[in-house]
């Protein structure tokens, strides 16, 4: 009998244990088991309403402005019917003990139910300007001089709609904040001076960047460079391009070609004055060098010898002749796109060229091996297409040391100098130091709190 009583006692104990454990083991409501992520929904709602900066604009309007009514309608219209909300705008204060003060609040329910979640979103006033101080290129690595060829005695080609001088002005405005020194070379005499290793106004000559603004043409100084740069045996100025390549290597410069086939013509309106001194399209003051110019430049850059000419049945060509590609070589070159790195830096530097371009003078990828331009040191501005490179900054590397670089944008005319600027900034990556964001009266905090109603 005692055993039975003991068992009943055990049963009572276990029952008590079950009741107590059931009391504490409260299972969640179905809604809590599979909840909508209200925090994310609130954030994405705020971002959607601010897609065109309407929310930012409304947040700074007075309480009686009709824009608040529009915002409430938009908010009600974009949230599911079972979602209630409370949107509150706060002024962000600086200094003092109070960080936020209430500006305005809109809601479609008295309470947000038993559970709710919120997201906050900081907006800035449209009439506030934030100052940005860029790091100067060359501050850390040396150099930092930007030469922009603004030669009044050189004509351009494939810069249709612009002049070399107008492009030089635009490039100056875009890029001069990023360089320690920016110098506009006003004529070919000044170009000769820096090629001779003499500074114009005491700037640092090595590691400089030289932007050629006259498109497929390149200014040629008279005198030494016009005589030594002329190959009388083949009646070509390809030798000048070869010397340019040597200078780029020697000074570790970065040569920039903004459009088309680099170094296709040489130009000097004071030197080429004859009746036939035109580029075959009626632009006088220049001579056609053809593809030989760039081939000779690459040889000069890579410290190869000069003189590998051949007869192609039509004319003398230097080295490989025509080397660039267009859509006939690969149809995808008809529409090339910005590289991921370039897209990232578009946002960083606030330069937004069209992300799609047409390449008609894309460089072949084999030049990387032939001329010691390793892929690891190339900054791609436009995505490579097959065996073609539409736009990139190439660096000539010898024994792990960079000796000269060039930027080539093998795109069709007219040039977009924003791409040139973006390419250089991608290559150098100067940092931007931004001013304080939470200046008084310029920022407002928007908090959207969401709750679910109905059901269980």
């Amino acid at each position, binding site marked *: 009998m005692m055993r039975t009583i003991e068992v009943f006692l055990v049963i009572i104990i276990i029952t008590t244990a079950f009741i107590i454990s059931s009391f504490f083991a409260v299972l969640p409501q179905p809604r809590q088991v599979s909840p909508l992520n209200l925090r994310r929904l609130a954030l994405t709602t705020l971002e959607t309403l601010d897609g065109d900066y309407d929310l930012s604009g409304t947040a700074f309007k007075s309480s009686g402005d009709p824009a608040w009514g529009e915002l409430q*309608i938009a908010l009600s219209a974009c949230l599911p019917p079972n979602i209630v909300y409370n949107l509150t705008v706060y002024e962000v204060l600086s200094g003092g003990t109070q960080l936020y003060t209430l500006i305005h609040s809109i809601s479609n329910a008295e309470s947000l139910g038993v559970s709710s979640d919120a997201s906050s979103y900081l907006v800035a006033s449209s009439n506030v300007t934030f100052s940005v101080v860029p790091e100067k290129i060359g501050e850390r690595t040396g150099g930092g001089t930007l030469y922009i060829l603004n030669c009044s005695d050189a004509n351009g080609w494939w810069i249709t709609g612009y002049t070399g001088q107008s492009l030089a002005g635009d490039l100056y405005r875009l890029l001069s904040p990023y360089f320690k020194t920016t110098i506009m070379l006003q004529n070919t005499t000044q170009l000769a001076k820096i090629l001779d290793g003499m500074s114009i106004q005491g700037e640092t000559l090595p590691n400089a960047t030289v932007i050629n603004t006259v498109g497929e043409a390149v200014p040629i100084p008279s005198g030494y460079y016009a005589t030594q740069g002329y190959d009388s045996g083949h009646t070509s100025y390809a030798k000048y391009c070869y010397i340019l390549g040597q200078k780029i290597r020697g000074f570790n410069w970065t040569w920039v070609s903004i459009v088309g086939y680099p170094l296709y013509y040489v130009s000097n309106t004071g030197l080429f004055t004859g009746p036939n001194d035109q580029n075959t399209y009626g632009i006088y003051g220049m001579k056609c060098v053809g593809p030989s110019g760039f081939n000779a430049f690459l040889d000069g850059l890579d410290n190869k010898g000069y003189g590998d000419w051949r007869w192609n049945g039509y004319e003398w060509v230097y080295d490989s002749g025509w080397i660039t590609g267009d859509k006939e070589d690969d149809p995808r070159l008809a529409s090339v796109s910005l590289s991921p790195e370039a897209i990232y830096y578009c946002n960083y530097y606030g330069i937004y060229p069209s992300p799609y371009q047409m390449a008609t003078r894309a460089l072949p990828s084999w030049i990387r091996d032939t001329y010691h331009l390793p892929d690891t040191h190339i900054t791609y501005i436009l995505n490579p297409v097959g065996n073609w490179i539409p736009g990139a900054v190439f660096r000539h590397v010898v024994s792990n040391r960079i000796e000269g670089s060039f930027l080539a944008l093998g795109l069709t005319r007219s040039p977009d100098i924003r791409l040139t600027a973006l390419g250089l900034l991608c290559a150098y990556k100067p940092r931007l130091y931004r001013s304080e964001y939470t200046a008084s009266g310029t920022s407002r905090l928007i908090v959207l709190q969401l709750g679910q109603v109905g059901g269980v």
Partner: protein
Amino acid sequence: MTGSTIDHLVSLMVFLGAILLFIGLFNQTIQTAILYQHHRSIATKCSDLLDNMLLNPGNPLDWGKNNCPLTGFGLQDPEFMQYRLSSFSLMRLLSSSGNRVYYSQTGKWYSNVSWGIGGGYFLLQESECINYSTASKLLGINGTYGFQLTITPTVDVTIVEDKIVTDHLRLNVTVMGQGFPLAGASVDYLIFWANSTTGDFRANTTETNAVGFVLLDFDGNGLPRIEVSQNQTAYTFIARVSLGGLRGVGYLSRETVTKAGNIMPFIENYEDGTILLAHKWGKNDPGEECQGALHFNATFYVLPDNFSPIKSDVLNLTGGPWLVNYGQKKPFYAVQIPPEARNEAGFLVVTYWREDESAYEYGMVVMPWGIGTIGISVIFGDNPSGKEWVATDIRQVLVNNIAYQAKLALWSLEGYQVIG
């Protein structure tokens, strides 16, 4: 002694019975808790997966603009941050909203995003689409979870012809949010129309009333007179509404079945923009007489953010007159979106007409290039109906600056391993 033994036996039996009962009771509670836990983990996975899809552009970044193989699945617009989706990547998703379409003249299957809804077609060759299986593998959930992704416009812009009016065109535009009308919304609209004497275009702006409604009378008083009786004029109407930062878009194209049939576009090659303008006879229901000669005109419009369309003439790939005639073995005609316009969002307007001695009949269809230009929806993935537990989550996204909602339904394909 006997009494003690009986006492032992009774107590043991009662004890064992009680233990079994309590094991059952505890087991019930534990099973329920495990199920709840499992469902909770699906809900968390659903939220994470949705963010994963919407906050990365995939690999390669521009997979939405060419037909290259995909190595990473993501729908974000690579040119933007946060929840902005690429209208081109969405185009390449194999639709599960409508029945797939087989076109016997090419012997190919086409993904059916829109089959003539409001005169809008979007049919992309299936071999150029990203299918559900590929997406599952790239997301790392193949065999473990099933999903369906729905991208629908947040603002529903409904445009219908008012049939009460017969002598001119009257359009009723209704703008609704998620169960709430958009009162006082600004409505920018474009209308392209064509008849035997003219082809014209007009852009204008108006505003919805307190219930999100606006009536547009094309009767010659303020708006041009457009007469649509007996199919004498065809039109495509596209409206964009904006209010408080919320934007929506809707369209209506007057697709008529003439006595010679009608025309529908198939996207034959996504990367080079080849479109087949196909005589719909043989692919649809009109009678035998509807296979005659149809003349047509096709124009592509890039639609930038300012809602001012930029005309871009399509390239003629087939050559010869712009004509399809099913009965004369000319079932379709190939055109190409020009390369400079192919990377821009826009729409193709196809005007077709039948000519004979008695009368002209006109019809128009529209095909978006980039989801979002005319506000069509995309449904991608498996069907969630009948699944044991389906978790859902929602995000607000922008496609071409148009507000959309991305909804993911997710369910487990594995067992729960719960006994009882």
